[in-house]
């Protein structure tokens, strides 16, 4: 009986801990979503966990050509919002493709090919993980002005690649090291060249590692704030992360609108967590512990 009681208490404690972890992790995200579908009047009088009068008003404000704010017609935010959304997608996707391509080929060279300076070059690249972005920011700013790459997609993507490549390279090297060479050797005996074996044999086998690197790079680029704050002064390349805080005006913050826009910015990460969490977690574990 005492045993049963203890096991029951243990189970209850475990369930309570699970609930606590879920509320802590998902609560703020849920609250942001609820805010984004609550009418402004309710927001300032009686916001509830379960919206009584759900509305798409804040989303309409994001997409509308004109909008109302506290009874006054104000300029629509859609032109800015859509430009920033496109910028976020282009820079994050561009950085992901470039980083994964460089990591996939570079790590292959660092593992399978013999060339002078191989190890020193690899370790120098990975050591830059310890250098914070702000330490290189100021000379980088002058360099980008000199190269006329300020406020261009190419400039932003290049900076992202230099920042996120070391981790991806580290990850891909551990993937190739764990892969047996026998398959490649068999293909060479059949007369296949290195490009053929890399493309048709090695890369398909390395797919989980490639996906993990792509996810880590995409999430880092998508959430980046300080780099575009300095290098993306106008809407030519300004991403959502820099635009959204600008919605905060000095005397009035439209929290409904901010949360609606925020929900857009968190949709891609949520999709990744829901559908690709296995790769994400394995990438995080490998990146942090190997």
């Amino acid at each position, binding site marked *: 009986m005492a045993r049963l009681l203890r096991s029951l208490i243990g189970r209850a404690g475990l369930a309570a801990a*699970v609930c606590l*972890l879920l509320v802590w992790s998902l609560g703020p995200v849920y609250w942001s979503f609820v805010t984004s579908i609550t009418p402004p009047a309710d927001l300032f009088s009686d916001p509830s966990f379960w919206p009584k009068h759900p509305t798409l008003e804040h989303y309409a404000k994001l997409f509308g050509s004109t909008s109302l704010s506290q009874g006054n017609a104000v300029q629509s935010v859609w032109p800015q919002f859509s430009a920033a959304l496109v910028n976020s997608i282009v820079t994050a996707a561009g950085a992901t493709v470039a980083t994964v391509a460089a990591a996939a080929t570079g790590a292959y060279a660092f593992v399978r090919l013999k060339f002078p300076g191989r190890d020193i070059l690899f370790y*120098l690249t990975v050591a830059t993980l310890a*250098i914070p972005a702000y*330490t*290189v*920011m100021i000379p980088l700013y002058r360099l980008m002005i000199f190269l006329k790459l300020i406020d261009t997609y190419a400039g932003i993507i290049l900076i992202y690649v230099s920042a996120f490549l070391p981790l991806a390279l580290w990850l891909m090297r551990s993937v190739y090291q764990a892969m047996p060479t026998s398959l490649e050797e068999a293909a060479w005996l059949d007369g296949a060249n290195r490009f053929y074996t890399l493309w048709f044999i090695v890369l398909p086998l390395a797919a989980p590692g490639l996906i993990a690197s792509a996810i880590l790079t995409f999430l880092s680029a998508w*959430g980046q704030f300080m780099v575009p704050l300095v290098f993306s002064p106008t809407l030519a390349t300004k991403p959502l992360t820099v635009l959204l805080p600008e919605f905060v005006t000095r005397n009035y913050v439209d929290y409904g609108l901010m949360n609606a826009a925020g929900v857009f910015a968190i949709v891609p990460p949520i999709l990744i*967590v829901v559908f690709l969490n296995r790769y994400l977690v394995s990438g995080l574990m490998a990146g942090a512990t190997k």
Partner: protein
Amino acid sequence: MTRSTFRADEILLAAVFVVPIAAIMGGLVFYPLAATTLESFFRVDPMRPDAPFVGLANYARLMTDRGVHASWLNTFAYVALAVAMETAGGLGAALLLNRIRVGRQWLLAATVLPWCLPPVINAIVWMWIFNPSYGLLNKLLLGLGLIAENKVWFNNQATALFLVSIVHVWRMMPLTAVILLAALQSIPKDLYEAAKLDGASPLRCFRLITLPLISGGLAIALSQSTVFAFNLFDEAWILAGSSVDTRSVIIQVYLTAFQNMRFSSGMALSILAMIASLVVSLIYVMRVYRETRFD
């Protein structure tokens, strides 16, 4: 190395693959790092024509600047608060995830989610929760009877530092949890069975088996949390802007360099911040290794 160990075709292919990486890392990381280090000893100011050598004058000026002092203290507060909360919470979450059988992958997905979201959006979401008039925090605490009236949380420096840390911890705790979960899963199960046969209590098992065997993961998690807390920028910037009460060292670097255009002061401060974060995380790693070496 002798020439015969290399083959021409391999070197050619390696060059195609590796030269772009070397160019990007050299041009966009190593050159700027060298420039930052070197120019922190010069007076570099876009508003003034020449850039004379000034020795340690930039560093000396940082020692007497009130804003810099405040930012160091704030950053140390962030590091202490964030590392303590992330380690305690992350260890708890990892132990829980390690015990759960049913639906573990879904709980893991929920746990990891905050880490995946853009830090700026996190800060905006929490800013709304902390809102003095309509925020959820005031509403909950009023409902529980813990406070008598709505509080303006950011009017008090200690509270402001704590709340900025909470937002940072919310984002970074998943990383600690995942690292510790990986460490926990590498512990052989039969160790616990043997200890159980010897009549060891769960607490004793934790202290004598779990803790020593995850010390490597713990060291990595600790140094990661430290470095990220040292680099705290987004959360404090969104929640309180350039406020002296909450500005971190990195915010101070940004203000000095890109708002006041004092490039060389900003570079000197960024070098100090980098060294400080590396030294502190190195101390953790060495202490954890030393304390657990004989177990």
